[in-house]
């Protein structure tokens, strides 16, 4: 069920937008912020609330990299796999992350703690390689540093 607070936030944003359709992406983000991902149930409810067909809402939800249509963990790890990070050691970093978490890129740990997502260039190429956990950037990383960093996210 969409919660009151979510609907209020969505409606406030819609009032700032020029039309309902323009608020669709932000509405998805508002819901995702509280729930981590967009389930089918939520998608249907949201489509009814916004007055757009569910298929259209889903076509938008599935287009954008940072809208998740599958359950994700409590913390989202974006690992930059673009060219400079690749040159600077991204593959070792990704291997260590996968081993440590026991998941492949795109998967979520069994305890629901982490989801590992490969991401396009994070725009910190002068401090490569980089990952982003939730809202925090971690740059200039070596695989050895990962244990201490992951430990900060329960």
């Amino acid at each position, binding site marked *: 069920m969409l919660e009151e607070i979510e609907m209020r936030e969505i409606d406030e944003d819609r009032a700032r937008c020029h039309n309902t*359709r323009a*608020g669709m*992406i932000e509405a998805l*983000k508002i819901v995702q912020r509280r729930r981590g991902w967009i389930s089918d149930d939520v998608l249907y409810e949201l489509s009814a609330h916004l007055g757009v067909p569910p298929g259209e809402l889903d076509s938008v939800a599935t287009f954008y*990299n940072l809208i998740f249509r599958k359950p994700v963990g409590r913390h989202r790890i974006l690992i930059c796999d673009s*060219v*400079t990070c690749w*040159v*600077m050691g991204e593959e070792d970093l990704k291997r260590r992350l996968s081993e440590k978490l026991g998941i492949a890129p795109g998967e979520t740990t069994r305890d629901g703690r982490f989801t590992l997502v490969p991401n396009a260039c994070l*725009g910190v190429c002068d401090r490569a390689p980089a990952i982003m956990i939730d809202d925090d950037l971690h740059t200039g990383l070596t695989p050895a540093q990962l244990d201490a960093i992951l430990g900060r996210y329960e």
Partner: protein
Amino acid sequence: MAERPLTGDIRPGEGPPRLTEYERRGGYAALKKALKQMDPAGVAEEVKRSGLRGRGGAGFPTGAKWSFVPMGTDAPEPKYLVANGDEMEPGTFKDRYLLEGNPHQLIEGMIIAAFAIQASVAFIFIREEYREACAALTRALAEAFAAGYLGGNILGSGFNLDMKLHVSAGRYMCGEETGLINALEGRRAVPRWKPPYPQTAGLWGKPTVVNNIETLCCVPHIVLKGAEYFKGLSRTGEGGTKLYGVSGKVKNPGCWELPMGTSIREILEEHAGGMMGGFKLKGLLPGGASTDFLLEEHLDVNMDFESVAKAGSRMGTGTIIVLDDRTCPVGFIHNLQKFFSRESCGWCTPCREGLAWVEKTLAAIEEGRGTREDIGILEFHVRLLAPGRTFCALAPGAMEPLGSGLKFFRDDFDRHISAPSCPWR
């Protein structure tokens, strides 16, 4: 020391200047000048004369772009100005520096640009991963509204401008201006057919100008100090300074504001400190992932749009990605194509299918499963995905490092095919 109008007030690690600090250093003086002493046509003319070219990668003259917007009392309403801060070109990290370091400079540039085209609504389009930039902009926008630089009847001029921050949900295609417009309308960020161009029919079918962050940050300096001043900042025919960057195996990777037309050698050797010990330069992409490779013999090329084009590449975003001798060029190009293939929006067939085929072919070559015919398949795609054959510039951009890589590093491709696996692994 050369002048650094765009970044001189940025203090890394200290946070961006707040409104009072920005004003104390001369901020919003250009806006006052534009609104009180100039008319929209005068502002547009000054920008045209300054020689400012778009800093997002294509280098289109900004004054010319603005000149296509219908003006006068019977022009369609409202008109829109959009700042493109969807910096997702691999290897590019210059707009982040401006957004985090001095958000008011962008806002001031946007108000002046909006005044020049008489737009009443402006959007700042930022990618979600730029959290610090989003926070800095949110705070700066609130300050600018509270101070009367945004909203109704700005500084008593009768000019009105609303400005909103749009935080993207992530996709490289949002950086393409018509894709960005679709994203702002809440659609999939697929490109639109041109013409009509956004300047006449853009956001919700109304006249819309989309400019890059760095481009808009130049505008206050042009207006305050004049076109001649701006032209004088450059070492070549193209006006202004430029934010250049270097990443890869160099001693001091980073981003610097230097005179437009600074040579690649100077950027690489003096500012980036040269190659890291034990590494040699093998090639470089001068301005992001979608530019042609250049080699050591090109180091004395001046980094401006015309000079880099003459050398067979594009300046693009001006952020150099270095390929060193200990990194496999095939793997490097495969990484680029994996990015482009993944970020292709799927709207047109040659890009959607072609890039995936290119990516798989390169993966096979890199893993030692390549055949002689694969080189022909790659060359075929370079021709197939040439400019004009796809809906937008994504696939043609992807072919720039591939086509030039096949030309310059052909021996390395052949070695992959004759050897059982990648010689670098």
